[in-house]
């Protein structure tokens, strides 16, 4: 952390009001927030989804998304009133003096152009450098961002570069005009934990090198703790509080902030491992894949009644493929899946209706998992109607029961469409739909990763309660070790289609670890502002030794 209080003020935002249009009315998104940023300072903006972090970050550039408008307040960037300035004047600032790094680099790089062309665009168009200079500069910055092959990587198209590298290339691109301010909008959220470390480190270094001021937007407290000098907490368009990072972490004033801090502490009591009895689901030496490639290589694990097995791994590790094998969407090349000790037909189309009923699935994205055109009555009622043959009043009663189970008031919600629900409510509907079939086993595929922490915690608690109530067995697919900590009984760690380690949770979180598990565990950011610095030093040391 650096002390920036002596530096001149770069950006001042006073009493900012921003409205968003939904249907025909304008409703406030930001309700009078102030913000001050000095040169070279990093401000962390934190809050849950809907808090207005991105909107505020963009407003710092004098920019609003379509369907939004700045309805009040003052934005002063280095003496320029961004609200009074013409669009042409604002445009001259963007990219040149204020740059932006978006959440998903993969989506924010134009797929039609090479990286270096996109790098050069801002400096060339703003008349700072010639094209040749910009290309030389790009290589230099790629090197500073520790990108592999900095001379060549710029000549690739975005799809040819991995996510972590893209995110670094995007930060480099934001730096191309050496701006005074960069707005980072959740730059590492879409990345795996192990990749996240490198990107965080690279961003931190380059911001420091060029003494660039930054607004760092994230929902992840541990991340912001590593990056920011000061932290501002937002809740539904209002500022909750603001303080320097260490103060904020150690002594939050407001209850809301405290509750945010507290989320990480939820953990249910671990149940003893089951050693006997027939597992509900048993995956036996399964090898499976698409085309010629094997995605899963000879994996085995069991899931018992009333137990939660967490399958952990980074993207591409094969954990979702394992779920597809179990559900029968992807028949394995070798091995089989047993249910209550009896082998299941490999293809779901060959399974009986009862076999289908017994194993249910909850998806990561409730938005795509719920048919947007069906009302909750049908979404939840359909499995009950199909599998249990419920009709008329009995069906309605069952739907209302299920809604109560997931803590939604039946009268209010039964005839709503998914689009009329919040993210957490949608996920609850996904759970209710699975429960409606009265299954023995539920696959939860990253069910909390798209949710805010408070909401996610609610979902985890609900799942926990339902498990004891209905004796359910869970297979919990996740990349988030915090989730594993809170809910798992057993852990299966996967990498490149293989199980690298498995066992009861307490053992898994105790050394000695498999090296990959070690890497995973150590990469989870901690609330300590010095964590990143320390970790990098340790890794350097190890690498030096090795």
């Amino acid at each position: 952390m650096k002390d920036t209080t002596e530096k001149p003020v770069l950006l001042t935002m006073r009493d900012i009001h921003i409205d968003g249009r939904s249907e025909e009315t304008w409703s406030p998104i930001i309700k009078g927030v102030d913000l001050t940023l000095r040169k070279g300072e990093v401000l962390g903006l934190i809050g849950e989804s809907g808090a207005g972090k991105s909107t505020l970050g963009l407003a710092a550039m004098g920019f609003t998304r379509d369907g939004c408008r700045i309805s009040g307040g003052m934005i002063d960037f280095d003496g320029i009133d961004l609200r009074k300035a013409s669009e042409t004047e604002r445009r001259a600032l963007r990219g040149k003096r204020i740059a932006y790094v978006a959440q998903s680099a993969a989506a924010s790089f134009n797929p039609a152009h090479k990286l270096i062309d996109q790098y050069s665009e801002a400096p060339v168009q703003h008349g700072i450098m010639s094209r040749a200079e910009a290309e030389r500069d790009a290589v230099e910055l790629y090197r500073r961002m520790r990108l592999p092959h900095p001379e060549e990587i710029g000549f690739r198209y975005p799809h040819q570069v991995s996510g972590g590298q893209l995110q670094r290339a995007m930060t480099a691109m934001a730096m191309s005009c050496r701006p005074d301010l960069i707005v980072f909008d959740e730059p590492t959220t879409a990345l795996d934990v192990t990749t996240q470390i490198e990107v965080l480190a690279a961003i931190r270094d380059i911001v420091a090198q060029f003494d660039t001021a930054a607004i760092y937007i994230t929902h992840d407290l541990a991340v912001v703790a590593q990056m920011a000098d000061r932290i501002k907490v937002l809740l539904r368009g209002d500022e909750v509080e603001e303080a320097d990072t260490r103060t904020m972490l150690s002594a939050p004033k407001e209850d809301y902030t405290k509750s945010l801090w507290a989320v990480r502490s939820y953990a249910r009591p671990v149940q003893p491992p089951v050693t006997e009895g027939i597992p509900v689901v048993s995956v036996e030496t399964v090898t499976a894949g698409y085309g010629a490639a094997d995605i899963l290589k000879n994996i085995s694990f069991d899931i018992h009644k009333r137990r939660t097995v967490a399958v952990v791994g980074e993207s591409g590790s094969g954990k979702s493929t394992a779920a597809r094998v179990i559900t029968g969407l992807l028949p394995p090349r070798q091995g089989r899946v047993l249910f209550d000790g009896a082998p299941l037909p490999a293809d779901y189309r060959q399974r009986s209706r009862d076999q289908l009923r017994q194993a249910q699935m909850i998806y990561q994205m409730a938005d795509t998992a719920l048919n947007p055109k069906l009302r909750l009555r049908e979404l939840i009622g359909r499995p009950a109607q199909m599998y249990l043959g419920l009709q008329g009043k009995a069906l309605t009663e069952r739907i209302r029961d299920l809604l109560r189970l997931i803590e939604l008031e039946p009268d209010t919600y039964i005839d709503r469409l998914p689009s009329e629900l919040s993210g957490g409510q949608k996920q609850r509907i996904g759970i209710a739909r699975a429960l409606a079939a009265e299954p023995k086993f539920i696959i939860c595929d990253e069910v909390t990763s798209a949710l805010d922490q408070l909401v996610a915690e609610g979902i985890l608690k609900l799942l926990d309660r339902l498990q004891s109530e209905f004796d359910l067995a869970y297979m919990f697919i996740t990349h988030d070790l915090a989730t594993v900590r809170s809910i798992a009984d057993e852990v299966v760690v996967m990498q490149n289609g293989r199980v690298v380690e498995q066992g009861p949770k307490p053992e898994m979180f105790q050394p000695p670890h498999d090296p990959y598990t070690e890497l995973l565990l150590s990469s989870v950011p901690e609330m300590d502002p010095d964590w990143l610095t320390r970790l990098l030093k340790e890794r350097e040391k190890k690498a030096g030794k090795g």
Partner: protein
Amino acid sequence: MSAIWTMIAKRLGLGLLTLFVISVLIFGATELLPGDLAKNILGQSATPETVAAFRRELGLDLPAHTRYLNWLLGAVQGDFGTSLANKRPIADLIATRLGNTLFLALYAAAISIPLSLMLGVLAALYRNTIFDRTANALALSSISFPEFFVAYILIFILAQSGLFPSMSRVDPDTGFAETLYRTFLPALTLTLVVTAHMMRMTRAAIINLLASPYIEMARLKGMTPMRVILHHALPNALAPIITVVALNLAYLITGVVVVEVVFVYPGLGQLMVDSVAKRDFPVVQAVALIFAAAYVLLNLTADVLSTLSNPRLIHRK
């Protein structure tokens, strides 16, 4: 790149299959049409013997499948035979008309494609403004008038005042500039007919991308709206635009019989209609296959171009 060659080879194979099936379909359809060429030429006066003689000479007495196979055998060897009605080799009959048809199609395309792309881009840039809505309404009005009617209006305005000829009579001796002048009105008619579709598609394809994060990124890099559209949206919108351009090109080649009639332009459409009326089967087949081949090839070209316009498909990881 090899993936493209595989695709081209596969698609050409499928295209040949398509042509084959179409030749069967067209043959079947002409068989179903009442009357045959012998009866058509002989008229009611013919005695059964003369009809038989005529049919024997033209080979119409053979069973349908034999006639078809004979035709197919010739066609596979590149010999499409001679017109039954006037004994002219079909290749001769078609050559100049195909040239005319292609010329008019390219002429109309040369006007309409740049025009519609430009209008589409401008409409996307100034979306929901008066310009956008006016261009849209005008374009829609122009496609909702029947082609021949558009042609008549153009003749009334541009030909009766003596600016352009109302007939597009061209022959191989006509000079290029003169041909351009004489075929201006049909080309303009076709332009009015196809521009709206391409313009709307261009506009829609571009607008469809405007919510993309990389467009927002470009705007946040301080790029002008024009550059955002041209440099960032357009390259990614090419695939649907190319497809719709190909469809319209195919229409310009295969669907313009009405314009040919009004402007007395000797193209393939009129030949096809005449030959259907006379039941001149080999000519019908040849023209139908040219039309189908044009469609297949244009679609293939569109797909290849769409692939080439997408770096994700040509530069694999």
